[in-house]
């Protein structure tokens, strides 16, 4: 197991390095020079040259890349153009809000979606199964920001059940949890049906496998068979997809944070783009990427915990 985690972490590092390099390349392939983007089209050439020099943009590309790596290794993401605060500090301040939001959304969606899918498979073609089928298609078709807006109008503006804006008072867990409900719902609701469908499909497959027949032939209870013998295998593909799905969810979080005026990386990024705050944009994207890579790592490790064939490096 440990060997698997080490091996997989090494891979995650390589992926992260590649992603970071790609990001660097993308920024330098953007049309127009960063100084003009930052300062606007009307800035004088002297001002641009000064900025270019301050940010090291007058150096050769490879030198810039090396410096970029060196800074990153030291945790230096640059400084905010306006406030002169270190970007790392700003990002670390906002990141927890986004992580909590994404985890609440994905956790909630799994908590409802996995049992729902399992039940749909065991009682397939029942009323609930059909209902889940229709609902999941409907929710997948509706973009999360539309769901977000409707939730906002209904649960917050009309019925006043949950607060709509912000993240709640810091230190007050209950208030923060109440503020989390709407954005997490907006982000996670579409996933409930999707997860249910995924689990249902693989559960139906697994229940037909020979080893389930063996378990039955030994008189094991249906409960043991479903939970310990089948579901454990049936969730494997879902865990992988959820790990990757965090990526989609992060971009959904951007909308949710703007709509619900919630602090977080999405909001930071949004403001950074609007004010052309180049280091902030860069830092936000970087940390989000790192978080995403970490999530795929975690989902693979969970898979390895559930399936010994994965930790032995065998395909299942």
């Amino acid at each position, binding site marked *: 197991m440990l060997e698997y985690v080490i091996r997989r972490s090494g891979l995650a590092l390589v992926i992260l390095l590649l992603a970071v390099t790609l990001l660097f390349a993308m920024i330098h392939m953007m049309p127009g020079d960063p100084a003009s983007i930052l300062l606007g089209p009307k800035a004088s050439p002297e001002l641009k040259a000064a900025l270019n020099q301050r940010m090291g943009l007058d150096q050769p590309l490879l030198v810039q890349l090396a410096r970029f790596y060196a800074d990153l290794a030291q945790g230096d993401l640059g400084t905010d153009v306006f406030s002169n605060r270190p970007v790392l500090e700003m990002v670390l301040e906002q990141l927890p809000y986004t992580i909590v939001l994404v985890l609440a959304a994905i956790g909630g969606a799994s908590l409802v979606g996995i049992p729902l899918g399992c039940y749909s498979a065991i009682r397939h073609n029942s009323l609930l199964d059909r209902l889940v089928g229709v609902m999941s298609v409907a929710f997948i078709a509706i973009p999360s920001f539309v769901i977000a807006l409707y939730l906002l109008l209904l649960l917050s503006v009309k019925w006043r059940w949950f607060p709509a804006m912000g993240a709640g008072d810091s230190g007050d867990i209950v208030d923060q949890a109440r503020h989390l409900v709407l954005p997490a719902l907006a982000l996670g609701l579409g996933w409930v049906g999707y997860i249910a469908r995924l689990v249902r499909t693989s559960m139906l497959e697994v229940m037909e496998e020979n*080893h389930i027949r*063996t378990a*039955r032939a*030994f*008189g*094991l209870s249906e409960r043991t068979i479903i939970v310990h013998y089948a579901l*454990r295998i049936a969730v494997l593909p879902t865990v992988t997809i959820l790990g990757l799905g965090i990526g989609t969810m992060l971009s959904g979080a951007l909308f949710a944070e703007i709509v619900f005026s919630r602090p977080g990386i999405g909001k930071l990024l949004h403001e950074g783009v609007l004010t052309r705050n180049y280091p902030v944009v860069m830092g936000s994207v970087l940390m989000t990427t790192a978080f995403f890579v970490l999530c795929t790592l975690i989902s693979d490790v969970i898979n390895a915990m559930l*399936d*010994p*064939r994965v930790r032995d490096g065998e395909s299942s």
Partner: protein
Amino acid sequence: MSAPVLNISNLSVNYSTDRGTLHALRDVDLHIQAGRIVGIVGESGCGKSTLISTIIRLLSANACVEEGEVLFQGEDLLALDAKAMRKLRGNELAMVFQDPMTSLNPVLSIGRQMLDIQYRDDGSKAEKKSRSLHMLERVGIPDAATQLDRYPHHLSGGMRQRVAIAMALMTEPSLLIADEPTTALDATLEIQIIQRLRQLQRDVGCAVLFISHHLGVISELCDEVVVMYAGEVVESGGTRQVFDAPKHPYTRGLLECDPASIQASDNILPVIPGQLPDLTDPPPGCIFQPRCDRSVAQCSSQRPRLDGQGHRAACFVATS
């Protein structure tokens, strides 16, 4: 004579398919006395697996038992509710399946799976574990203690099948059903496992219903043999009687193809000219008539029955 453990009479099972009703088993009779080993032999598709799935009540959803009785220790299994049936499974009635590569759970350790099937016992975990260990040793698994912590994919096919046999015999059942347990294995392994099975059967004293399409294995292992063809029992009797003096043209065909090869360890069922009848539309007379070179007029209009005791065949022209 000891009491019968299993008494199947008049059993007919259908599958509903998109081509219509498939008559997988028709009027099957089969009796197993306590402590005896009975072999079922027949080509692939003749209904062997359907028969044992009916006994253990794990038929697929599109199957339907038309009529018949499956008496196990005097109780009709077909009339039992799900709970009563579950009580017998893996207890009085144990099963070894065909494909060792897929019949164990891939994500649970051998030890865990062996522990789980002992859920009926009150003993401590340690007691159950030592029982598993002992059972693995009895089926000839080397270094059994280490194997308990391993997973099926760490084990070879032969080892997995030994584990499956160990699991099946752990509760000392009255009847062990083995559906082609050695078909997927190579010949040397097959013989080793058959010998081991024979010895364990003597120790445990259970009856065995052994399914195979390997004549050599059947003649080696079984006291009695039942020959099936296209969903019907065409001949049954003591193994020596059937092998030495087959009555039914189908059995004769199987054995006469190449008598020497019966003992050859890599022999599978010889090929008889023609093919299995369409089970959705079986012939009105004898099921084997279309392929039979000895049929008379009666054969295509009337169904021969498997009557009498001892060595018997369902055939009008049976040689005695």
